[in-house]
């Protein structure tokens, strides 16, 4: 299998889908001439031309709305919002139109739209540019919320999104764009939505992550094994909606302990959902309260040390595990 970077795996998915289905087109801020702010779309304008790779003005609500309209009329658009930070401006379109039209029209309308955006802190971009809002999107029925943590998942999930009849909020982590991994070159390589991935088996504790935090979980598991001889199972959720809680529950019924790792602020964040569901569905198996290792309750500061302190780290995960054993 060829080894690709996460960004290149995404590009491959876009290319293949553009070739496969002529209803697919891409639009977004600086995806064309600039090549995409994270270079995901580089080269696609040259290859597919201006009708299928469209540089848009900076108008998040407008371009997401246009994507919804085009999808309603039978196209298969992808809208890139550059980063998740700018998606607040398109939230009404996403929540009130993309997510609800199918239901409100009693199934008459559907909105097969892919909205891509980069998420995550840790790059010293300051508070306005460092959001992790996967959980915010997961809250809204009608959406798919997908957040791949590996190059292969990036490809397989993005391609799957183009085959979906609903709107997929496809969230990439800025820290992963350069990550390498083996990626199937099968043009029909699809990963089903709502299937979590057990990245590593273990018996003492379950560590749950998604997107970037998957790797904090993995590194923590390594540290726990090496330093403490603790065997941790690591689960990458892959999708927050639909959520594969069953895989998490099955794991916790085995390990009896769980830690959820998330970049986003802990208070009112998605980790709380996992925690609550575990209590509801695996109470009798829990030997300790589910722990959350998440972002601290502050806007993300620019200074490197402060930012680092505000974000969850593998050390924090290790600490949480040790505290519950």
């Amino acid at each position, binding site marked *: 299998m060829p080894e690709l970077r996460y960004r290149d795996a995404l590009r491959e998915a876009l290319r293949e889908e553009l070739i496969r289905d002529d209803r697919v087109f891409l639009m977004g801020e600086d995806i064309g001439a600039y090549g995409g702010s994270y270079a995901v779309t580089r080269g696609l304008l040259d290859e597919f031309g201006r009708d299928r790779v469209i540089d848009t003005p900076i*108008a998040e609500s407008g*371009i997401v*709305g*246009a994507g919804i309209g085009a999808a309603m009329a*039978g196209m298969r658009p992808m809208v890139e919002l550059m980063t998740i930070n700018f998606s607040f401006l398109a939230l009404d*379109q996403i929540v009130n139109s993309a997510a609800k039209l199918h239901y409100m029209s009693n199934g008459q309308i559907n909105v097969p739209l892919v909205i891509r955006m980069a998420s995550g802190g840790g790059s010293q971009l300051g508070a306005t540019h460092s959001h992790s809002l996967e959980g915010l999107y997961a809250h809204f029925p009608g959406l798919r919320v997908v957040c791949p943590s590996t190059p292969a998942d990036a490809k397989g999930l993005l391609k799957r999104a183009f085959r979906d009849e609903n709107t997929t909020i496809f969230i990439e982590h800025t820290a992963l764009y350069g990550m390498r991994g083996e990626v199937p070159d099968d043009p029909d390589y699809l990963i089903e939505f709502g299937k979590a991935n057990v990245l590593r088996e273990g018996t003492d504790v379950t560590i749950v992550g998604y997107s970037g935090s998957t790797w904090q979980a993995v590194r923590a598991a390594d540290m726990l094994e090496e330093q403490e001889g603790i065997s941790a199972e690591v689960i990458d959720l892959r999708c927050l909606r639909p959520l594969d809680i069953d895989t998490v529950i099955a794991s916790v019924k085995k390990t009896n302990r769980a830690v959820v790792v998330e970049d986003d602020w802990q208070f009112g964040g998605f980790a709380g959902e996992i925690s609550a569901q575990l209590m509801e569905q695996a109470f009798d198996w829990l030997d300790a309260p589910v722990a959350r290792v998440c972002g601290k309750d502050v806007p993300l500061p620019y200074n490197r040390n402060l930012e680092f302190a505000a974000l969850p780290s593998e050390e924090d995960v290790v600490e949480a595990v040790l505290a519950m054993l």
Partner: protein
Amino acid sequence: MPTSQTVARPVEDGLTADQLHSFLHQMLFIRRFEEKCGEMYTRGKIRGFLHLYTGQEACAVGSFATLGEQDKIVTHYRDHGHAIARGVDPNRIMAELFGRVDGLSSGRGGSMHLYDTSKGFLGGYAIVAAHLPLAVGLGMAANMKKDNSLAFCVFGDGSVAEGEFHEALNLAALWKTPVIFFCENNLYGMGVPISESLSTEITTLAAAYNMPAVKIDGMDVLDVYRETQKAVEHCRSGQGPYFIEAMTYRYRGHSMADPELYRLKDEVEDARRRDCIARLRTHMQELGLIDDDSFAALQQRVDEEMDEVVAFADASPEPGLDTLFDHVVKESVRA
């Protein structure tokens, strides 16, 4: 949808007598439909927010007569008149307002959210100005699919202050998408007069985006028809979007909950004197197309039609509770 009496005579503006009769019938039908809705709201059959279209009928009827089957319509929450003018089954509209299973959306949408994709009626949108970008996307798709369709987008004067108005007009003009932006200026957004909502003239602003922008008499169905025809030609010939501001007036409050503290009764009376139905009726009388008797007959017919509409809606059952989770997402076949 009401069908027209056949009178085989050509008249002005390329319109046949048939068409004029149809306009009159449709406007009257919408008027009565809305009055009936008001009544049904008072009787608790219709609930939630209810925005009536009374007074503005000429806008929907005159403009929609210029559209083709392939065209796509999006409008705002004051959408009954548009749905009816588009030929959506009034029985199913009323059933929707009653929240019943035979409603357009089986009672899921309600008054502000009417949809009938079989008629290219892609919805009433309840978030002010949110559907303007959608119209741009519909226009993009039309250009891409080269299906000769256009997007017809209705909204109110109050929507012009929203950011999405700007984003949509710019995108449409920039990308030359076939969109008719049809602003029904009824002088108020809820209780706020347009002079307190916009620093400029609506058409001045629209024209600044580099698209034709005209102000027309929205109380005159013939003016609406003529002017929208120009817009349709413009869009069909690939010249991009077109903007129409139709000056009109709503006779009722913003919604059924409106105490109407912000305007004087006189102002409403003034507007009623320019009523679109009375005006077309007079015009048709002058042309010898209608007399008092035939108008009374038409009224009578519409009243009967309306009884049927209500009877249909009322006979329709409530949706089953077991349908609650249907259509949250569409099942996707693995390709």
